[in-house]
């Protein structure tokens, strides 16, 4: 991918991030933080690549370590968000 495309994508995603947050109700700011934390572990993709590729053993182990860390985050982040949101569940009327 050429740099301009990547940059375009980056810039547009920044705008989306900007707008998305403003539309979140303030009461959900804590879950918001938890969710963004969880999805920021998309860095796992980098870890997976390193772990999957041959070439450097050190890199592979670093990659695996990254996968462990990111996994903690992914599972922990989503699960904790789910718990928080459950508290906000609308009562049945």
């Amino acid at each position: 991918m050429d740099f301009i495309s990547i940059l375009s994508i980056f810039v547009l995603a920044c705008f989306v991030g900007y707008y998305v947050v403003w539309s979140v109700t303030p009461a959900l700011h804590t879950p918001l933080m938890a969710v963004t934390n969880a999805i920021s572990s998309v860095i796992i993709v980098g870890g997976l690549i390193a772990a999957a590729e041959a070439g450097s053993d050190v890199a592979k182990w670093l990659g695996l370590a990254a996968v462990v860390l990111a996994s903690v985050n992914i599972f922990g982040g989503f699960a904790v968000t789910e718990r928080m949101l459950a508290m906000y569940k609308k009562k049945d009327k």
Partner: protein
Amino acid sequence: MLAYLIAGVFFILALRGLSSPASSRRGNRFGMVGMLIAVVTTLVTHDIANLPEIGVAMLIGGAIGFIIARRIAMTAMPELVAGFHSLVGLAAVLVGWAAYLNPAAFGLLTATGISPISKIEMGLGIAIGAITFSGSVIAFAKLSGRMSGSPILLPARHVINLGTLAAIIVLTALFAMATGPDATLPYIAALTVLAFIIGFLLIIPIGGADMPVVVSMLNSYSGWAAAAMGFTLGNTAMIITGALVGSSGAILSYIMCRAMNRSFISVIAGGFGADDSGGGSGEAKEQRPYKQGSAADAAFMLEQAEKVIIIPGYGMAVAQAQHALREMADMLEEKGVEVKYAIHPVAGRMPGHMNVLLAEAQVPYENVFELEDINSEFAQADVAFIIGANDVVNPAAKTDKSSPIYGMPVFDVGNAKQVFFIKRSMGGVGYAGVDNDVFYMDQTMMLLSDAKKMVEEIVKALD
């Protein structure tokens, strides 16, 4: 890869879901799906190599994460999030190093080694990741009480901070320009170490009151780190997600600062802002801790409630908040919430003071109850909403023989699941001039503002 774009879109939808409580859980599910897509795609496109190791790694990490998430007390949420951030930061550092060590795997190997631009991206990713890590560790320590919450101010810290930052930038440039493992390794190693250090330095001087903003800011940093790695790897999912998290985290910190009346700049810049610290929960009389809430918090909880009991007092009269209060109650009733008014025999400054005002606002008499008739209902109430009352809810009247109000019957607001307490300041007292334990209860949220203004804001937020 189209799949990465789809993953990015799912992440966007995940955040969008949080715009209302109703759609929030669906949002979280979207996030999970997005992550699943990203992971599976990566594995597939890399021939599912080394699956056993990877599987084990994910299992270990996943189990730890899951258990932590289950076990943790709800009140420890902020430090948990801070702790999680540190992991993302560290992961970014590791991935950066992995890419540095095995550029071919990431398709970064050109004829002349890694291209300078990739190296800049890589360097930035590692630096931001390291800052995120060490900063989050400090935030975690401060929030969990493992470290004192008060700002720790080094002498000449401005100079040290600026110097370190400059050094990181210079090192990144040198790293980009150098070629060959021998030339580059010292730079990247130094850079990594310095970044870890600046992370500590930046967060240490920040006081406990500002920690939530810091956590959100670190969240943003972790996003930027992911985005930087995404640039290196040319991975759409990482770029979109990183930018999303980075910008949303930054805006969220900004929103939080605004709500707390703190300067955004000073918090972003970390230690630089410690001078005008304080504020927030730090300033309670006798330093007893209390929770302060906003109109939005109150609106949210009120809406969720099944039964709300409103306790008006002299402050409502002073603020002339009765009309706004009535409107708030109307809106809640429309949403199916049961609203009652509890009138203390001596609320206000004359007999029947509250009755006059509530009648003026056309509150139906059927909703207005005397102390004896309603006091037992607090146990079933989801919210006790105290507006400008004080002495009449003071438990000291029951427990403290030396109190000037000892012997007066009071509302047992402590039995309600949640208490909102509107008054203008923590300093102000009621007629009897005594402190009130209700302020400091676990379930109490103080809404410090003029009563009319606060209720009007709640009305707006209820919409």
